[in-house]
């Protein structure tokens, strides 16, 4: 009896070992076996425009009235599917015009010259060096890219609007309503937004990625220039060197990257 149990256990053990090794060998065979095809790669587009720190210079001397700004604003809003809402509290704006006293609040005084007083200034997200909106965002939906562009990931935005409270420039708009019905002509190349997310200027990141200049630059007939602020040879640096420029609320320390020649 003792003998037969012993032999039974032997056979059972060897069988179990035999059954157990096959799946293990299969795994080894599968992991090392297919080396023929290289792994897929992910990269930037070859034609993409890049910079260390993107910046913008707006030459306000080339604008005279609100009509001069309209085609630029329209170009921006059209390609980004920005809805046209008439209710002022619901308005969504990426790029718009405003008066000197509202734009440069710390510089305004009552005796300022007439040209400046009535001149509309183009305003947009300043793509700050130290963006307050990024610090305020609880979901990291807003973030600063390595090249200085402050972007939004609309997928992650929960619509808390902390960023809107944090932004000292009022550059952000909230979709209080579904924007789709208010978009006159949908641009199929760019998504719309949905109700309950915040949106703002994205420095045309999607255009830079395919080698195109931002839409406002193209529509401005040379009044708006963008380029690399860290490259001393760039066009924006040349403009900053040769002209007197101001920024919006620099004393707040956010480090706006949009400069105005006045």
């Amino acid at each position: 009896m003792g003998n037969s149990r012993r032999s039974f256990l032997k056979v059972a053990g060897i069988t179990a070992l035999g059954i157990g090794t096959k799946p293990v060998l299969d795994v080894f065979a599968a992991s090392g076996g297919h080396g023929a095809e290289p792994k897929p790669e992910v990269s930037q587009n070859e034609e993409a425009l890049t910079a260390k720190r993107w910046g913008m210079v707006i030459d306000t001397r080339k604008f005279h009235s609100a009509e001069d700004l309209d085609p630029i604003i329209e170009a921006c809003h059209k390609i980004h599917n920005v809805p046209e809402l008439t209710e002022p509290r619901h308005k969504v704006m990426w790029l718009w015009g405003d008066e000197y006293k509202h734009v440069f609040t710390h510089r305004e005084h009552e005796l300022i010259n007439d040209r400046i007083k009535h001149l509309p200034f183009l305003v947009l997200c300043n793509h700050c060096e130290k963006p307050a909106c990024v610090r305020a965002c609880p979901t990291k939906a807003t973030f600063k890219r390595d090249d200085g562009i402050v972007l939004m990931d609309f997928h992650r935005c929960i619509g808390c609007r902390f960023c809107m409270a944090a932004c000292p420039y009022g550059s952000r708009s909230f979709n209080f309503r579904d924007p789709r019905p208010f978009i006159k002509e949908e641009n199929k190349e760019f998504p719309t937004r949905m109700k309950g997310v915040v949106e703002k200027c994205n420095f045309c990141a999607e255009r830079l990625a395919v080698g195109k200049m931002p839409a406002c630059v193209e529509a401005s007939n040379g009044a708006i220039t963008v380029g690399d602020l860290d490259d001393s040879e760039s066009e924006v640096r040349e403009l900053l060197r040769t002209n007197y420029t101001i920024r919006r609320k620099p004393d707040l320390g956010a480090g706006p990257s949009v400069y105005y020649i006045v």
Partner: protein
Amino acid sequence: MYDKNKIVTGLVIFVAIVTFPFWYNLGKAIPAPEPKLSEKAKAAKECVVPKADMKSEHMQILDLWRDTVVRDANRAYKTGKGKTFNMSLSTGEDSCTGCHDNKAEFCDKCHNYASVDPYCWDCHIAPKEKKPEENK
């Protein structure tokens, strides 16, 4: 046993009601739908990854892609075979819907069957549906 007849009748009725969904739907199972490829997708033959992986992992791929595009600004995807795709759901000819331009036949068929309701189309603009005769 008291009231045997009443109890047995009651039990029979109870079992009949409880099992009603099972025998009512017996043999009526809807077959799993097959997504229909557009002519363009058929002509292209290959997708970003093999078909079986695409079937099981397209949601993870899309999720990874959107982070890669939005966060890292990497928009070009080169497959192992050397073909390059634009990492986008709805922008341009070499994006997902640039090739699979029949949302109802391709996306919705399975999504409706599996009762999943992805929110892609809340923002992304779906490709324009062609009339059936144009598709053929």
